[in-house]
Structures are given as C-alpha cells and as structure tokens.
C-alpha cells in the first residue's frame, strides 16, 4: 500500500467514524429541527446543488471573500515592504496590527456596518482578518533574508529585480505560504460571519441566516458544509498557485541527485 493510499484511507476512515457518530446522535435525538441526519443533509444538499441559485449564491460569496483576501495580500505585502524599510513605519503600524488581531471580529463587523455598505462589508472584514497575518509573515520573511546573499548581490551589482526574484521572493515565499494557510480559513470564516450579520443579497451568509430564521436546520447544515468544503478547495488552490510561483522564482532547473 502506498503512503498516499494509506493516508487517503485513514482520512476516509476518520470521516466515516464521525458521520456514523452523527447518524447515531441524530437517531437518538430523533428531531430534524435539532439535528438532521447525514442522509437528510445529503439529500437536501443534492437538491440545493442542482439549483442555479445555489451556485450563484456561492459564487458571490466566494467573490466577496476572495476580493477581501486579495486586497489584504496586496496591502499586507506592500506594508511589510514599507515597515521592513522604515523603523518609523514599523513603530507606527505594529500596534495597529496587534489591535486588529486581538479585537473580536464581531466588534469590527458592527463598527463597519455603521461605516460601510452591506455588500462591501464582508470584503472589508475578510481583508481585515487576513491583513495582520500576511503583514507579520511577509515581514518575517523579508527580515529573514540571508545578509550574506544580499552582500553577494551588492558585490556583483545584481539588478534590483533579479535580487527580488532570486533572493527576496524565495526567502519570503515559505512565510507567505504559512500566512495563506492560516489566514485563508480565517478570512473565509470572518467573511461569512459578516454576511450572516449583514445579510447581503446572494450570499451564503444570508442563506444561513434565513435557515436559522425559518428553522430549516437541514439547510443550515448544507450551507455550513458548503462553507467548509469551499474553504478547503480555495485553500488548496491558492497554496498550489503560490507553490507554482515559488518554482518559477527559484527551483526551476534544480534536479535531485
């Protein structure tokens, strides 16, 4: 048995265990309103997935959250570059980032509700949650560049773009990857939470809110499952994209011995 197959079978076994436990609990409770069974959720999920509205709703939510994450990545990288160059900028920005990290997301959502429109708010909240993580990790990556390699670049008068591509980028990428891995889930969850509180048109958050409102617990489970699955898929895709960028920047021709 290959390690990959073994890993897959283990994951499947774990999933089966929890689904069976869920099914058992649902049978014990015996009330759909409190806890629908996995089969009911699966059936309802099948019905929803076959409707065009499901995909439209999902795509809009993905677009909002990804817009927020993308904005946070761009801003986080730019701010990291700035704060690693300027001690003053770092001194000014560090407490702000700590504040953002330690403030409950609900406080920001309510505050932002006063300042911003409902449809923009999930974008803003996703960005806000991801920004400190990206900034901190990219800063660490820039600061962690090997000074001996930077000296080498000076001696050989390497163009700035080459230094960026060959030294800075490969130094920062592992940190960036770690940031993405932890921030994506955070951004996604915060974005959906913001949608639940602001109920914008065509959003998973609105569907979750309405499921709760009309006591459609099965729908609530389906939409929650959709959030989890989408979060995993988006994380995988983005990390793969980052890995590809890493290969282009660094290990292009290297071959194992």
């Amino acid at each position: 048995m290959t390690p990959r197959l073994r890993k897959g079978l283990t994951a499947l076994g774990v999933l089966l265990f929890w689904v069976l436990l869920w099914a058992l609990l649902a049978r014990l409770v015996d009330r759909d309103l409190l806890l629908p069974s996995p089969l009911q959720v699966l059936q309802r999920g099948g019905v929803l997935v076959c409707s065009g509205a499901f995909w439209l709703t999902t795509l809009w939510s993905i677009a909002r959250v990804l817009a927020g994450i993308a904005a946070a990545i761009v801003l986080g990288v730019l701010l990291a570059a700035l704060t690693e160059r300027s001690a003053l900028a770092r001194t000014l920005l560090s407490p702000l980032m700590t504040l953002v990290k330690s403030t409950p997301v609900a406080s920001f959502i309510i505050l932002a509700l006063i300042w911003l429109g409902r449809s923009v708010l999930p974008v803003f909240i996703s960005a806000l949650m991801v920004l400190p993580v990206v900034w901190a990790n990219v800063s660490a990556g820039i600061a962690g560049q090997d000074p001996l390699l930077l000296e080498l670049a000076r001696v050989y008068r390497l163009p700035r773009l080459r230094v960026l591509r060959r030294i800075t980028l490969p130094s920062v990428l592992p940190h960036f990857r770690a940031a993405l891995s932890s921030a994506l889930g955070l951004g996604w969850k915060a974005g959906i939470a913001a949608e639940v509180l602001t109920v914008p048109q065509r959003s998973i958050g609105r569907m979750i809110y309405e499921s709760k409102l009309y006591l459609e617990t099965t729908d609530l489970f389906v939409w929650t499952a959709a959030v989890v699955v989408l979060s995993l898929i988006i994380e995988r895709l983005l990390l793969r994209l980052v890995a590809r960028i890493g290969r282009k920047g660094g290990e292009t021709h290297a071959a194992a011995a």
Partner: protein
Amino acid sequence: MLRLHKVSLSFGDRAVLRGCSLDLPAGARLALMGPSGCGKTSLLRIALGLQAPDAGDVILRAARASAVFQEPRLLPWLSAEENVNLVLSDGPATLDEAGAWLDRLELGDARRFLPAELSGGMQQRVSLARALAVGPDLLLLDEPFKGMDEALRGRVLRLISDSLPEAAILLVTHDAQEAEALGCRILRYHEGRFEP
C-alpha cells in the same frame, strides 16, 4: 583599480587596522598574509564597500569586481549552474556558458545539483566559477581554496591565472605557495598594516 588610504578599523577596544594603505593598480596581484583575526577579511570587506572603515578612504574603480568569500554564499534554492548564471544574464541564453565554467572547475556532473547536494569544497568551486564567469577586472579572493586537495588546488590556481591574465587580484591566504602560484606580491600583517 583599488586604493585604500590610511584605513583604520577597530572591534571594540581592539584596533585591527591602523592607517593601513594599499594600492592595487590594474593587472597587479597582491596577497595579504597574517595571523587569523588580524583584519585581512575586514580589509577585503572594506574594499568591496561591504563595511565602512572607522577612518580612511577607499577608491574602487573596477568595472566588474567579483569576489570569492570564505563561505560559498550560494543560493540554496538554485542549482550549481543557476548560481553561476545568476551573475550572467540569469536567463537561458547564458546557462550553457555557466555550465562551461563549471566544467572548467571539474563540476560538469554537478551542474544541476543544489548546493546542499555538494560537498563544501565543491560549493567553493561553484563560487569560484561564478566569480570567474563575469570576466572580472578585479578579483578578490578570501581563502578560497579550502576543502581542495593539493592537485585540484594547483589546477584551479592555473585556471584562475589563465582565465584572467589581465585582472587585478587581491588574495587573502595563509599559504605562500598559493600566492606564488597566482604571481601575487605578498604583503604581511604588521602592527595594523600590510607591508612587503
């Protein structure tokens, strides 16, 4: 090509260079010798502009300076040939040229190896290949032959001499034979200065 005028440098209370002057015209070859920690490497770093002296002036007029440090300073995520190519165009157009330099340094089989897959001596030769590949008019070498056996060291010394017949060379070494093989005039450390 390179002129240092009354350069001084201290580490805390310890003065290593005291009004040290050095003149390396185009094509000249000098070797700095002296006990460990006397300031040879610091002098090279000052010459390259990597370290500021406490006092004194440095004039560097090289069009293409290159250096081999005590440590190979290879980019760990690039293969041997990519490390050499880094100082050329860094594109596919000069990859063969980079590979040819590795061939000359007897590393033809290791072109696509990552630095971590090479021994210390092999890494140092990649670093030498990189320094020679740019066709420098000034080459600074800081004990670059560590980890090489005598026969290989002889061949590498010949390669440097043959490849750069007109370049100025500043060598830091503990071995007078290396200096002689490169045709360097030897300067020895004496009370904060390097003197013939």
